[in-house]
């Protein structure tokens, strides 16, 4: 078992003919993901031929991809100016799980888009996220498949490459993952820590969770309180940004300490108060999760 993606995932790639879209479609196909359609307005009727010889039909609209190929999941690699529209198109076409990789979508667009996706009852992951991977089954997004291995640990993270680091630590220590989810670092995201933790909590295959946060906002604090109240499996936490100065944005639009709120120190303290074991270094995740699984 897993969360968000499994062997019933039928993926449509929005922006399949773009640079990133085509590169990652190859990667996803190679990993075994069922990529059933691509969408590029104006290129409907053409098809995408992968490095491994697979061909994927291209449509003008997501609606057609749903009707003709039964797509139920979408991944979005379109430029920021059009990404918000692409998300709404997917939700409007009945796609249940939408993964937006695109970085740099205007926040004002996302406030409306987030509301739209909720109105349509779909789940959005991201934007500005690496996507999700269920090791050995399917990947949707850009997480490198080779660093993952199937197993009992769910990974959820606001970061991209830091997620890879954490997953890699687990894999190197021989600990597999149920699903790895990058929720994205933007101020407005479709799926937050609690949403993901809840899904892991309902997944029988997930026995422990690694949660990777960073400075800025209060998502981690709220997640910690939720974990203590609702979750029965153990959680190991890590927070990046102990050395980040207040008031400066650290790459991610959301990674900024405003006034005295959102420091790494505060978040780590709240984690510990709510029974989440805190890793001081990424490498410490190994021992803590081993302990948790043994516990």
């Amino acid at each position, binding site marked *: 078992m897993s969360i968000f993606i499994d062997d019933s995932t039928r993926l449509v790639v929005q922006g399949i003919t773009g640079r990133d879209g085509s*590169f990652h479609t190859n990667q996803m196909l190679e990993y075994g993901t069922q990529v059933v359609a691509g969408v590029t307005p104006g290129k409907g009727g053409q098809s995408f031929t992968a490095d491994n010889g697979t061909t994927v039909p291209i449509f003008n609209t997501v609606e057609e991809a749903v009707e003709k190929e039964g797509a139920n999941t979408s991944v979005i690699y379109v430029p*920021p*100016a059009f990404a918000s529209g692409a998300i709404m198109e997917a939700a409007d076409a009945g796609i249940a799980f939408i993964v937006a990789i695109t*970085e*740099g*979508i*205007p*926040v*004002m*667009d*996302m*406030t*409306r888009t*987030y*509301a739209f996706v909720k109105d349509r009852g779909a789940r959005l992951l991201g934007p500005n996220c*690496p996507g999700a991977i269920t090791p050995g089954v399917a990947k949707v997004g*850009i997480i*490198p498949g080779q*660093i993952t291995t199937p197993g009992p640990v769910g990974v959820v*993270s*606001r*970061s*991209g*490459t*830091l*997620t*890879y*680091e954490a997953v*890699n630590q687990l894999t190197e220590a021989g600990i597999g993952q149920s699903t790895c989810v990058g929720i994205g*670092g933007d*101020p*407005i*995201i479709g799926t937050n820590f609690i949403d993901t933790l809840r899904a892991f909590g309902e997944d029988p295959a997930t026995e422990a969770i690694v949660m*990777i946060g*960073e*400075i800025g*906002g*209060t*998502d981690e604090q709220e997640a910690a309180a939720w974990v203590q109240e609702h979750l029965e499996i153990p959680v190991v936490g*890590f927070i*990046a*940004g*102990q*050395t*980040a*100065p207040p008031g*400066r*944005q*650290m*790459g*991610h*639009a959301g*990674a900024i300490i405003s*006034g*005295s709120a959102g420091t*790494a120190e505060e978040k780590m303290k709240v984690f510990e108060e709510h029974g989440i074991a805190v890793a*001081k*270094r*990424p*490498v410490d995740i190994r021992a803590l999760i081993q302990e948790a699984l043994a516990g």
Partner: protein
Amino acid sequence: MDIHEYQAKELFRAAGVAVPPGEVATTAEQAEEIARRYGGSVVVKAQVHAGGRGKAGGVKLASSAEEAREHASKILGMTIKDLTVQKVLVTPIEDIASEAYASVLIDRETQRPMFMVSPEGGVDIEEVAENRPEAIRKLRIDPRYGLLPHQAYSLATFLYDDPAQVKQATKLMGQLYEAFTSNSCSLAEINPLIVTPEGDLKAIDAKVSIDESALFRLPEVAAYRDLDAEPAAETKAREAGLSFVKLEGDVGCCVNGAGLAMATMDLVKYYGGEPANFLDIGGSSNPDKVVAALEIITADPSVKSILFNIFGGITRCDDVANGIVEAARRIDIQPPIVIRLTGTNETEALEILKEAGFSAYTSMDEVVEKAVELAAQA
């Protein structure tokens, strides 16, 4: 992107907000001339992207044009939080009957724009939030409907009792929200929002941050970027598509991904060092970016060692390796460089680096320890 007070006021004026007049001077003489036109009784305000201008001596009242010149000559060129003041705003002094606070920002929790208003203005709103939270009213706006009339009214009645002021404030809330949304702000703040003895509401100070992601469709706002008001290294980084923040330490860091970059800095500290910077080269692996990153890092004289931490995903390790080799050819790099590369095309990358004589690691802890050690030895 932060913009200056005078620019923020321009955006507010365009949305209809009552903002007193004001002009910008870059010399003391200009300041004097402007002050004379306003009758001499003016405020001279440093235009820098930093809070606490008042405490730092960057805001001065003048009762004559001559005094305005004197103030301007002191403020222009002064340094506030590492930033040199290059412009002052000269604006008439307003008589104040009461001061309030009003802002709109993005509330991460509800994923919506949020108003924050308080009848206690002209002070640090964070302090008010901590000590007297009941003096602050927060109101989330459903982006599907925008600010509704009864919401604007309820914000206004939280600030004022007098019907004429409630009426003005109701209108102002709409204008502030319009300024916020039409300019894709992440923050639009009026502090203080004053009532004059005549009963008129006016925005005396204004602070606006713009969502960088929206600048592509706001050319007029994008033109507000004041390159003189930010460190040259950050300008260079942004132009090269990098994300850079200068810190106080001596271990230069070059990482792909913001989270990993922060975790790397933290690990430097863990092993007893101090990071010299935050630097995220982003997802793409263009060798030119790596060259630009090294140029920026090496331009900082306090850097004693340089640490690369690359986890290849989209980023191809061989591209990064080529960038490092290329940079070493083009620029004279004094501090020692240690490199950790893992992930996509790792093997090719290690080969490239070995040939060029660089030491490469595959573990994050190893490379950080080594970089800290090298900096300490320097």
